[in-house]
C-alpha cells in the first residue's frame, strides 16, 4: 500500500483536522504515515491544503506531488490540484461549492454535497468529516469503527472539557460520509 493524498479547501474548512485525523487513524493501524500542512501566502483565508502519505514501507518524501487521491472543498483547489492527480486516482469533490463538471479522464470522481449534508446535520463545519467518511470507505484504510474511535479520542485530547455534542455531530458526519451512496 502506498497512498498519497492531498486535501484542499478554504482556510477554516477543517482541512488540517481532517488530515491529522486520517494520519492518526493510519498510525493506529500500524502504518507509516506523514502529514504535511501548507497554508497560502496569506495568514488566514486563502487556500489551505495538506499532503498525507500512508504506506507499509518506510516513507521518504512527505511532499506529495502526484497524489493518488484528492479531496477538494472548493473551486480554486480543484483547479490547482486536479491536473496533478495520478491516473486511476480518486477525486472527491465537495459538490455543494464546486459546480465544475470537466475533470480529466481516467480518474474516479465522487461528488458529494458535503457542505449541504453538514448543514443538515446542523453545523457546516463538519463537512470535512463527511468527506473523510467517503474517503475511508473507498480506500479501506481503516474500518468505520476504528475511525470513530480515533475521532473520539482525538477530540477528547484536544478539548478536554469539550461538550459531548461536538463529538456527537462529528461522529454522525463521519458516519454519513461513510454511508453516502454516490
Amino acid at each position, binding site marked *: 500500500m502506498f497512498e498519497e493524498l492531498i486535501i484542499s479547501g478554504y482556510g477554516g474548512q477543517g482541512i488540517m483536522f481532517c488530515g*491529522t485525523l486520517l*494520519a*492518526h487513524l493510519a*498510525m493506529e493501524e*500500524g502504518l*507509516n*504515515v*506523514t*502529514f*504535511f*500542512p501548507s497554508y497560502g501566502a496569506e495568514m488566514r483565508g486563502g487556500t489551505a491544503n495538506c499532503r498525507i502519505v500512508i504506506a507499509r*514501507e*518506510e*516513507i*521518504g*518524501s*512527505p*511532499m506529495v*506531488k502526484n497524489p493518488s487521491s484528492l479531496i477538494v472543498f472548493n473551486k480554486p483547489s480543484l483547479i490547482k490540484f486536479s491536473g496533478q492527480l495520478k491516473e486511476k486516482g480518486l477525486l472527491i469533490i465537495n459538490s455543494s461549492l464546486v459546480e465544475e463538471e470537466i475533470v480529466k479522464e481516467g480518474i474516479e470522481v465522487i461528488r458529494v454535497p458535503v457542505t449541504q449534508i453538514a448543514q443538515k446535520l446542523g453545523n457546516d463545519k463538519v463537512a470535512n468529516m463527511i468527506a473523510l467518511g467517503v474517503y475511508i470507505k473507498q480506500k479501506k484504510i481503516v474500518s468505520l469503527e476504528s475511525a470513530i474511535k480515533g475521532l473520539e479520542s482525538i477530540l477528547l485530547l484536544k478539548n478536554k472539557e469539550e461538550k459531548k455534542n461536538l463529538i456527537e455531530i462529528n461522529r454522525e458526519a463521519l458516519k454519513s460520509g461513510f454511508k453516502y451512496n454516490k
Partner: protein
Amino acid sequence: MEKKILIRGNEAIGEGAIQSGCRAYFGYPITPQNELTAYMAKRMFEVKGVFIQAESEIAAINMVFGASLTGVRTMTSSSSPGISLKQEGISYMAACQLPGVIVNIQRGGPGLGNIAGSQGDYFQATRGGGHGDYRTIVLAPYSAQEMFDLTCLSFQLADKYRNPVMLLSDGIVGQMIEPMRQNWDTNDKNIEWKVRGEDWILNGCKGREPRMVRSLLMEEGELEKLNWELNRKYKKMEEQEVRVDLWNIEDAEIIIVAYGIAARIGKTVIQRARRQGLKVGMIRPITLWPFPIQVIKDIAQKVKSFLVIEMSLGQMVEDVRLAIEGKRRVHFCGRPGGSVLEVDEILDKLREISNLK
C-alpha cells in the same frame, strides 16, 4: 507494541528538550518554527522551568548565554534570518565554552525569503556564520523521531564538550507530523535534570574562589592559547562524534549524499531507482559538522560516483568534494529558495550519471 504518538517535528524538538532536562528556553517568534516556541511556553510552565519570549533573537541568544552560565540546560530556536542575528552570540558562547542548543528550522532565503523549508544555511551552520575560528557541532534530523532523539543528543554533546550545538532542520521536517515512539515517562515530575559543570559555572562564590567567564583576552598570546585549546577540542569532536546513516550501500554504484529533508526525498528516489534497476545507495550525514569525511572516503573506493542533493544551490557538496579529493566524480542536484526537490528530476540525473563512463 511500543507506544507511538503523532507529533509535529517542531514539537518533537520541544519534548526532546524537556526530556533532556532543558529548563530554560528563550525564543522569538518566526515561522516555520513557531510551534516550538509555543510548545515551550506551555511545557516550561508545566515543568517549572524558565520560558521567556525575548525581545529579539539577539536577546534570546544572550539569555541562553546567561542561563548556560548558571549550569542549567538551555536552548533557543529560530529560523534563518533570526539565526543570522544570533551569530555574534554563538561566537561568544563558543569562546566562553558555554554549552547550549540552538535550533534552526531553515526557511527560504536570502533576505526575508519565504517560509518554506530550505537548506540554504548549511554554510552558516558548519563554517561558523559568526566571527573567529570556532566550531559548533551541527546535527541534522530528518524525521519527527530524530527531531526528538537528536535534540537529546544535542544537549549531551553540548555538555560533554562545553560547546554550543546547532540542530539544523527545516520548515518541512519542522511542520511535518509523523508518528514517534513515546518511550519516556509522561509524568513531568519524574524528569531528571541537574545543574552541570560545578567547576566552571557562576552561581555565587560561596565556599570557593570567585570565577569569571569572559572572552576578552588581551594579554599577549592569551587568545591564541584559547584558540589552540578550542582547536584540540574540535579535533576530538572530529574523531569521536561523526554520525552517519548508510542506506543501500552494499551493492551501490552511485551514492546519493543528502541530509535532512533532502535525504527523505533521496529515499523515495532510491526506492524508485532500484525498481528501475539502478544501483543507488545513500550516505546521510547526521552530523554535518564534524562531517563524515572518512566514511565518504572509504565508500568512494567502492563506488562509481556521487550525487549530492540539497535544497540549496550547493553547499554541503563542497564538503563532499573536500572528502573525495577528486578521486570520484561528484555530481550535484539542487533547488534553492524553498522549492522542493523533484523526485523525477533527480531520477533523470541518476540515469544520466549512470550512463556516463
